[in-house]
């Protein structure tokens, strides 16, 4: 099996994630879509590492996971706080910045 297929899969997953971020309103879903995009990127990094026969890509994938874990903690905390104060998890409701 050609390693290219992993890259195609990565591209498809990234697109699904990107579309999800733009289209969906629920903050949790948007959040999950971002995770999907990150993991799509991870997949392509690992694939490139395999293609080139070096470990660089795999190392960077670990970094991405660490950063993603931190981001989940902070992001979920923000979503929960917004939900508590506004009784809504819709990201369109949190559009006060323009005023």
């Amino acid at each position, binding site marked *: 099996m050609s390693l290219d297929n992993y890259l195609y899969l990565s591209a498809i997953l990234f697109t699904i994630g990107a579309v999800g*971020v*733009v289209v969906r309103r629920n903050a949790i879903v948007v959040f999950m879509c971002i995770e999907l995009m990150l993991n799509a990127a991870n997949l392509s990094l690992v694939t490139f590492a395999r293609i080139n026969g070096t470990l660089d890509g795999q190392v960077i994938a670990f970094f991405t996971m660490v950063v993603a874990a931190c981001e989940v903690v902070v992001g979920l905390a923000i979503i929960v706080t917004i939900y508590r104060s506004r009784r809504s998890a819709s*990201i*369109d409701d949190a*559009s006060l910045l*323009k*005023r």
Partner: protein
Amino acid sequence: MATNNGLVYLIALPLFGALTLLLLGRKADKWGHLLATAMSAGSFAFGLVQLSQMLDREAELRPVTQKLFTWISVGSFNVDAALLLDQLSICFVLLITGVGTLIHIYSISYMSHDEDRRRFFAYLNLFIASMLLLVLGDSYLNLYVGWEGVGLASYLLIGFWNKKPAYATASKKAFVMNRIGDMGLSFAIMIAFASLGTVSFSGVKEHAHHASEATMTAIGIMLLIAAVGKSAQFPLQAWLGDAMAGPTPVSALIHAATMVTAGVYLIVRSNFVFDAAPNAQLLVVIVGAITLLFGAIIGMAKDDIKKALAASTMSQIGYMILASGLGPAGYAYAIMHLLTHGFFKAGMFLGAGSVMHGMNDEVDMRKYGGLRKFMPITFVTFGLGYLAIIGVPPFAGFYSKDMIIETALNAGGAKGIILGTITLIGAAITAFYMTRVMIMTFTSPKRWDDNQHPHESPALMWIPMAILAIGSVISGYLLYQGKAFKHWLEPLFEKHGEHTELLPPIVVSGLALTMVAIGVAIAVIKYQLSEVDSVAPEKVSIFTRIARRDLLQDDVNEALFMRPGQALTSALVKVDDSVVDGAVRGVGKMALGSGSALRKTQTGFVRSYAVLILIGAASLIAAIWVVTT
């Protein structure tokens, strides 16, 4: 030239007084006037010492210098801050400090009720220091420092009672008109530097012979403009009348005896320039002749005693300027008239101050009359000054003015006849308006109301007046005796051949005295033998009305300079508003407009930001892809 390291003390003493009084402020209120007077007197005593040392030396060795420090040193161009005391400056040093000290003494009493007396004395000392620097500087640049200094002191003292807006305006007017003259002086310095490469008196004198006549004419005309501004000559004369807003001692010291004669000093000091530039010299004579008549005519119409005296000052300085424009023959007489004028005019101004002191500061001569009985000392001192100014022998003015008339007549050809006639007419008019002042103030019947209690001034005031009166009696004879003064100044000027005499001196004197007698007679008939109105009559000829308005000098200035200047500035304001401010405001508006347009993209919806980021990233990748393949 010999050096003398003591010259600086002449200036340092009054400067120290001025700084002390100004810096200590109210703390010096109790003794400030005494310190200032002592400083001025000390400077005078020091000047006398210098004179006696100078008299001991041979004529060629008399000038002494002192280098204070190197002021400017750029490549080959060097200007030292240096002082020069020669036969000419010593006259001025003694006049300034001598008359200055007397006026300090007078002011102690005259200003005793003024709560700002300390500030007044500080300014007086500042004036003395600046004026001494003016006459002691050994280059045009040093002179310029003193020149500006006296302008400042004059401004401060004219506006001394600046609580009255009219007085503050008068000081501003004097300052602005003086600035025009100052521009002339700075241009003269620039031309001398650019074309001769030196600004010292001795340097310019060396170059005067081989420089082109055009250069010397340019320098001469610029120096004349400077003299015209400072000495209130035509056409920059309008400020002197208003300068009488200052306290009377100031009018006596600055606007009669010393500062306004600085223009004469400048021209006589620059004799080498004018000798090398006949056209500029002719212009000097013309200015002098015009002002001589101009001032005299204004003097005939003024009812304000100080303004009448101011017009007379203008006219007398016209005599001096005229004499200094007559070349080597006239320089000595210009300075001689300047010295005698310093005595009698300062004396008369102090007399006017004494009259005002006794009359509750009334200045209108139509509200005087019969004061001879109430102020005998003032009457006598003023009267001696009066006899001196109209030129009755053997009083001071006779010698000095007679010599000017004689020199003018002997100037040769039509020029001599015209100038001689003008000076003779001037003498007649002088006699008329001074007699008018004398009669209206002292000898005509009283026209003041019963609230007035005229009284003689205290001794502190009349003693200086008496000393000046003695000076106006004897100074002319002393200076004239054996042509002493002419020989004293001779080493400074070029030799001149004896002129052919148009008329023998005795005839000239006779003519002058006849003119004086006519002037006096008309004034006596008009004012002593007939009633004087206590209010200025309204139904007078157009000529009188014009003369009362200072021969329209303010109207001319207003029409020629002020209105166009105002139009120019308001046009510039419009340009500034529309073009300059328009550009500035336009930039602001542009930023504001583009900002409010771009603001619409900030919706606050996270998803729209996400789309924008996505589009941005995608187009970045696309761009890289396009570039690399």
